[in-house]
C-alpha cells in the first residue's frame, strides 16, 4: 500500500475512461480541460485523467460517432475551445458501459465479500 499523502492515483481500466467521459458529457457540452477537471473533482482527486489518455480517448470516441466536437467561444473567457457533446449513439453506449460496469462491480464485490471471522 503506498503511503504518500496524495490521494491514490488509480490507473483507469481500459474503457472505463470512455464511460466517465460520456457520463460527464451527459450534463452538457464540455471541452477537454473541463472534462478532466470534472472527473478529478467528482472523484476527490482519486482519478487523475492524463492528458496523454484523455485526448486520444476523445478522438477515438469522436471517430466512433459517440460524441461530436465543435469549436465554440467560451462564455466566461474570450477564447475558443473545442466543445464535445454527446450523440444519441453516445448515450446508448453510456447505458451499455454502465450496465457492464455494474455487472463487473457486482462480480468483484462478490469475490471481495467479507469472510466470516474477518
Amino acid at each position, binding site marked *: 500500500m503506498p503511503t504518500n499523502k496524495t490521494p491514490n492515483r488509480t490507473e483507469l481500466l481500459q474503457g472505463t475512461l470512455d464511460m466517465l467521459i460520456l457520463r460527464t458529457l451527459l450534463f452538457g457540452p464540455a*471541452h477537454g*480541460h473541463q472534462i478532466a477537471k470534472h472527473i478529478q473533482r467528482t472523484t476527490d482527486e482519486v482519478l487523475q485523467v492524463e*492528458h496523454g489518455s484523455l*485526448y*486520444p480517448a476523445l478522438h477515438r470516441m469522436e471517430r466512433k460517432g459517440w460524441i461530436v466536437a465543435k469549436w465554440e467561444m467560451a462564455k466566461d473567457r474570450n*477564447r475558443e475551445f473545442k466543445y464535445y457533446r454527446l450523440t444519441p449513439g453516445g448515450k446508448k453506449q453510456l447505458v451499455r458501459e454502465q450496465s457492464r460496469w455494474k455487472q463487473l462491480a457486482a462480480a468483484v464485490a462478490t469475490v471481495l465479500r467479507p469472510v466470516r471471522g474477518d
Partner: protein
Amino acid sequence: MSVWNWLRSRIARVAVWRRRDRDAEVERELEAHLELESEEQRDSGVPPEEARHAARRAFGNTTRVQEDVREIWSAIWLERFARDVRYAARSLRKSPGFAAVAILTLALGIGANTAIFSAIDALMLRPLPFTAADQLVRIYSIQKGMFNTFANPDGPSALDVRDFAQRSRSFQNMVAYDTWAKNVSFGESAGRPEQMEVGLVPAAYFEILGIRPIIGRLFSEDENEEGKNYVAAISAQLWRNRFDDDPSVLGRKIRINGEAYSIVAVMPNVIPAWVEPGRHSEIWTPFPYSPDMWAESGRGERGYAALARLKPGVSVEQAQADLSVIAAALAAEHPVDEGVGVAVKRLADSRVGALRPMLYLLMGAVSLILLIACVNLANLLLARNSARQRELAVRAALGAGRGGLVRQLLAETLLLSLIGGAVGFGCAEIGLTALARMHPENLPQLSSVGIDWRVLTFTLLVSLVTSLLFGLAPAFMGTRLNLVDALKQGGRSGMSGRSSQRVRSLLVITEMAMCLMLVVGASLLIRSIIRLEGQNLGIRQDHLLRGRIYLPPVRYSNPGVRTRFCDDFGTRVRAVPGVMGATVTTVYPPNNGWTQMLVIPGHPVTRLQDVPTAQFGVVDQHFLRTLGIPLIRGRDFAEPDSATSPPVALISKEFKRRYFATEDPIGRKIHIGPPQLPGIAVEENITDDVDVTIIGIIDDFKNAGLAHAPQPQITVLYSQHPLVNGGFKDILVRTASEPHAVESEIRSQLRALDSDVPLAEVQTIDELVERSTGGRRFTTVLLASFAVAGLALAVVGIYGVVSSLVAQRKQEMAVRMALGASHGNVLWLVLKHGLKMAVIGAAIGLCGAWAAQKFTAGLLYGISPLDPLTFAGAPVFLLAVAAIACAIPGARVLQIDPAQALRHD
C-alpha cells in the same frame, strides 16, 4: 494506368491535407488547454513563468499525444504500413550498395530458377496432352550383346508387336508405327517438292492417343493393306499453311514419292514431335502391311516405334512383367529373338530422351544457385542488421516501440524481396528467351515455354522466407538488447559481434563449397565438349556441304537407273564453279551408316552373336578424294570398277586390326551378308550376298557417332551392288569458299535431272557436328553461366564478411599497428580469415564434387569425372578469386591511421 495514378495522387493529397488539418487542430486544442492550465496556476498565485512550466510538466509529452491522436484517425494499419514502406525505401536508398547487391542476388536466384524450372516443367513434368495419358506406354526391344552396339533401347519388329498384342492381357491396344522422310508436293500438279517426315500409322495410333480428326475420318482397317493405302491425314498446322483452313480439303490430293494420296482427315496439332521416331510429322498415311511383313523372316527387322495403352488399373510394372514372359517365350521359339528382351516405359518419360540426365544436372545446379543466393541474402541481412544495432538502439531509446522496429525491418525485407522478385521475373523472361534461342535440335518443345507462375511463386516464397528468417531474427535479438549496452559499445557496432560473425563465416563456407561444385561441373563439361567438337573426324572437315536426296521407287525401281542418276548428279555438281569435288554416298562422319554382317575367311562362327560385323557404306569412286580420307595401302576405287567388273571393297585400319590382324587383307575375298547358320533365318540386313575383293586399306574415320571410337568400316561401290543401292543417298560437296554459296546451283542441277526430287537437310559437316552436340552445348553453356553466377555471389559473400570484419576490428588493428605491427602483418590477419573460409569451403566442395561424380560421369566425353587437372585447378581458381575478394576490403586496413582510429573511439 494514368487514371489509377491520378486517383492515387488525389487520395494521397486529400489524406495528407486532412492529416495536416487535424494535426493543427489537435495542436490548437492542446494549446488552449495548456493556456487554461497555466492561467489556473497563475490564479492560485504561482509566478507566470513558473506557472507555464508547471502546466507543461503536468501536461506531459504533447507530441506523443499528437501522434496517438493521429494514429486514431489514420486508416491505421494501412497508413502505418505505407509509412513503413516509405521509410524502408528511404533507408534502402541510403545504402544503395547493399540494396543493389541484395536485389541482384534475389533476382539471380529467382530468375535462374524460374527459367530453368519452367523449362523443365514444360519439357518433362507437364501432363501430356492426351486423355488418360498415364495409361500410355512405349515398348522397346532391348538387345543384349547383339547388333545394336550402343545399347540404346531400340524398337521392336512388327512381328514382335503383333505377338505381344495377341498374347498379353495388360493392354487395351498396341500399335507399331514408323516415320519416313519422303518427297512431298502439294496440289494436283507436281509442284516443287520437299522432303518431309511422313508418319506411317495404322488408325490405332490415333485411337491409342485418343485423338479425333477435326474433320474427316480415321483410316480404315483395309487401308493398311498395300494398294489401298493411298489416303493421308494432315495436321491442322499444315491445313492452315497450305490449304488456308479450307474445309473442302478432304478429297484433295497430295503427292508423296510421286504417288497421289487423297486427304481424308485433318488432325489437331497435339502430337508432340518426340512421340514420333523421326522428326515431326505433319502428314500421316496408313502403314501398308505387305504380305511378307508377317513372314517369320521379318522378325529380326527391328526399329519400329511401338505405342500402347494400358488397361485401366494395370500398372507399368505389371505390363512389363506380362511382356517379359512373352518375350522370353518368343526368344525360346525364334533363335533370332535370342537375347532380346522387352522394356515398357511410360510415354511421358520418353519425352526428353537422352537429355534427361542433363536436365537433372541443370536442375541440381540451379537449385544450388538458389541456395547460394539465399545464403548470400542471409549474409547480407545479417551484416546490415548487426551494423544497424546502434541505430536500432537509438531509436528504441527515443521511444520507438519494439513492434515498430520489427515492423519497419519487416517492411524493408518485404520491399527488398518484392523488388528482387520483380527483377527476377525480368531475368527469367530474358533467360527463357535465351534458352529458346539456343534451342537445341533435340528439344523443339523449348521454343514454346512460358514462365511458370507456380515456380515464380515458389522461388519468391523461398527467398521471402530466407529474408524473413535472417532479416527479422536480428531484429528480435536486436530489439531485446540492452539499450545502454548497445549505446555504450559506441563505434563497435554489433550485438554479439562474434557469434554473428561466426554464422556469417559458416554461410560463406557453404557458398564456397557449392560454388566449387558448380565450377568443377562446368569445367568438366566445357572440357568434354571442347574435346568432342575438336575431335578429328578422320576427314577434312571444313568446306564440306552435304544434302540428302531420295529417289522414290515408283520411277526409280531399277538399280541401274539409280546408279545412272547418282553418277550424273555427281558429275553435274563437280562441274559447278567453286566445287572442288563431290561424292554420292551413304556414309560420312560422324554419322553411323548401317551395321552389316559379314563372312570373313578364317572367322568361322556358330552363334549369331559371333558373326563379324562392320559399318557398311555404299559410295561412288570420288568418296576418298572428296572427303580427304587417306589411303594407307592398296588402291582407291577407279574408273574400271563398274557394274560389270568384279566387286571391290575398301576396308579401314580398324577393320584390318580386328579381322586381319596378322595377314595382308589386300586381294582377299569376303562375303557381304550373314553366314548360313542352322535354323536361323536372318533377314536382318539389306544384303546382296556377294563376295568382294579387298583392294585397299583406308584410315579410320568417325563412323559411329561423335562420342564413340571408329568401328570397323567396309566401303563398296553402289554401281556393283544393285541390292543395296537404295533410294536414300547423300551428296557431299567440297567447295573452295563458303559452302552454302553453291547450294542453289546444286539444287538447280538436281532439278535439271528430276524436278520431282528435292534436296533436303542441306548443311555443312561443321553444322552437323555442332547440331549433334547441341544438347551438350546447351547444358554446358547453362552450367557455365550458373558457375559464373555462383562465383559472383560467393565473391560478394566473402567480400562482405571480410569488409565488415575490417570495419569491426579497426580499433584492434590500430592498436596493433601502434604497437609496431607492420601493415603486412595486419593485412595478413584479414586475409587469413577470408582464405580460411575459402579453403574450408573448397575442401567441402571437393568432397561434394567427388560425391556427385556418378551424376556427371554419363555426361562427359573423354574425361574422367574425377579429372585430376579439374579437381586441382578449380580450388586454386576459387582460392585466387577469394583472395582478390578479400584483398579489396583488406586494403582498407592499410589506410588506417592508428592515431586517428584510436582517438575516434
